Every structure is written in C-alpha cells, then in structure tokens.
C-alpha cells in the first residue's frame, strides 16, 4: 500500500480521483464527526468531565476568533474549528500503520488552501466592496504587482507547507521501518513522536494562517480589537 509516489487511481464520469485519499478523507470525516458528536451530546448546564474540555476549546477558539477577526468573524468560527479538527485528525491518521493522511496529497491541501483564499476574497469584497479592491493598490499603485504575487503565494505556501511536512513524515516512517531491523525500534518511535508533534503544529499553523487571512477580509478596521 505504501509504495511511495504511486497512487491508486479511480476514474468516474471522465474525472480522475485518488482513491486512497478519498477513502482516508471519509475515514477522517467519520472520526471527526464521531468525536465531536460524542463530545457535545448530553451537554449540561453545570459542566463535568469531557464537557469542560470541549467548552475550553470552544471558548478559546471564540476568544481567538473575536481577537483576530472581530465581531463579523464570529460566523466563521465553526469553519475554523472544522478546519483544525479535520487537519489534526488527517495528519495523525497517517501515523497509524496501513493508513495514510489525506493531507499527504497535494489535492487535499491545495483544495483547502484555495477554498480559504476564495473565501477571503469573496468575503472581503462582500464586506468592504471597493475599499477591498483598493487595498491591493496601497500604499501606491505600483505595489499591485507585489500584492498580486503575495495573494498568489498565499495558497501555494499554505498548501505546500502542510503537504510537504506530512508527506515527508510518512515517507521517513516507512523508510525508517525498512532500514532498521525490528529489534531497533527507537529511531522509528522517536520519529513517530516527532511526527505527532509536527502533525499538531502543522494543523495549528494552517488554521491560524487561514484565520489571519480571513481576518484581513472580514475585520472592520475601525473596530477595537
């Protein structure tokens, strides 16, 4: 299954799909949904146990979102939360033997990055209209070239950062398992632990950057943070 660089391809209605990526995505979605629903059902007015953890996460996100994105950004909170949960479960899924991360496929990361960037521009235009277009020409008109490069760079950096980190982690796990004899598991275990850390950090970075980009589009400049 883990033959590096070779992907199982399925063709449907003239479109090509990476079958493994799709399966792993659905598995990730199932896990995220299962965990979320388990964690949030039976909410009580006086919290106890797991509910405290869930509430701390939601409250923390709420604080982060309102600080970065302002009042208008509140409706994006579930989107940001979903993004983080999806990415962290995706990244860690590849660390389970025989499974793979959906995020080791550029299609996934670029898809999400483009989704974020398209949302940024649409929301920016929706909320600010002409002023949003004008800000590409700030501080002087020729800067539009640099701004354009920046806008194009955003989805590319966002997607390749995540994709590269996760793919490299998985490749190295496979290589380490092949290189090391089974009685020498320490390098694999260490790398696995590091990959868990990397998976969390990358999910966090992707989410925070998305939130920052969205904030530019959504936040009211006159609003006090």
């Amino acid at each position, binding site marked *: 299954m883990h033959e590096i660089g070779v992907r199982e391809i399925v063709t449907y209605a003239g479109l090509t799909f990476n079958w493994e990526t799709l399966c792993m995505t659905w598995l990730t979605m199932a896990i995220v949904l299962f965990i979320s629903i388990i964690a949030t059902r039976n*909410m009580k007015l006086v919290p106890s146990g797991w509910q405290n953890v869930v509430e701390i996460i939601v409250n923390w996100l709420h604080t982060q979102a309102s600080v970065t994105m302002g009042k208008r950004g509140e409706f994006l909170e579930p989107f940001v939360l*979903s993004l983080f949960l999806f990415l962290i479960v995706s990244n860690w899924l590849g660390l389970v033997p025989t499974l793979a991360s959906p995020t080791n496929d550029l299609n996934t990361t670029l898809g999400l990055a483009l989704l974020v960037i398209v949302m940024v521009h649409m929301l920016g235009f929706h909320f600010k209209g002409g002023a949003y277009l004008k800000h590409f020409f700030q501080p002087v008109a020729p800067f539009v070239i640099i701004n354009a490069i920046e806008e194009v760079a955003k989805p590319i950096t966002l997607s390749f950062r995540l994709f590269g980190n996760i793919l490299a982690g998985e490749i190295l796990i496979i290589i380490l398992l092949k290189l090391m004899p089974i009685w020498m598991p320490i390098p694999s275990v260490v790398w696995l632990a590091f990959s868990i850390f990397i998976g969390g950090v990358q999910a966090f970075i992707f989410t925070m950057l998305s939130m920052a980009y969205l904030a530019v589009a959504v936040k009211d400049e006159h609003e006090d943070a």
Partner: protein
Amino acid sequence: MIELNATLLAQVLNFLILAGLLRAFAYKPVVRMLKKRQDTIAANINRADADAAAAQATLKEYQDKLNSAREQAQQIVDEASRRAAEERARKLKETQTEIDRMKKAAKAEIERDHERAEEQLRKEVVELSIAAASKIISKNIKTEDNERLVGDFLSRVDKKKIGDFSC
C-alpha cells in the same frame, strides 16, 4: 507524485460537508448551551440582587416595627409609672385623711371616756360625801350645817380640779 486532478474538487466538497455537519451537530449545541448558561447565570444574578433588595426592605420594615414597638413599650411603661405615682399619692392622701379621722375619733372617744369617768367620779364622790355626811349627821350636826358642808364640798369637786384626784 504531485499531480492535481479531480480529487481537489472532491476534497473541497468533502470538507464543506464536514464543516456543515460539524456546525449543525457539534458547534451549535455547544454554543447554544453556553448561551443558555450565560442567560441562566445572568438571571440568577438578577434574582439574587432582587432578593437582596427585598431582604433589605424587609429588614428595614422589621427594624421600623421594632423601633415603634420599643417606643410604644416605653410609653406604656411611662404611663404605668405615672399612674402608679398618682395612685401612690392618692393612697397616701387617703391614708393621711383616715389617720386624721381615726385620730379625731380616738380623741373624741378619750374625751367621752374622760367625761364618763368624771361623771362616775362625781357620783361616787357624792355618794361618799353623803355617806360621810350621814356619819357626821349621825354625830348630831344640824341640817343646815350639813347642807352647807355638802355644798362646799361639791363646789370644790370641780371639773378643773378633777385632775388632782387619782381616778
């Protein structure tokens, strides 16, 4: 290894579905619950404030009542002691009058006894005189002399000199 195809669109769709489901099934309940808790706490604080105000009002009311009761009690005590003082003065006066009256009665009684005793004495004196006179007469004294003696004697047994006798 890096090839873009329709998976990209599928992944976007997948993620949007996930985001929608999470929003409906996980995010909304948490937010709703947090809102509900906030409302409950706010309501509780309001109610606590109202209760405290009511308690304060009740306390004030009772304190007022207590104060007026104390005042009333003081009034009652004052009234009672005033009446008691009046009663005492009245009783004292009555007793004084009674004592005066009794004194007067006793004096009158004494006087009456005195008079009676005087009368008695006078009678006895007369009898004794007569007896004495009889004895003298028996020793042959003239009747005229006898009467004069008796009269003399009687005039000496006067009211004012009765004190000289030991009755």
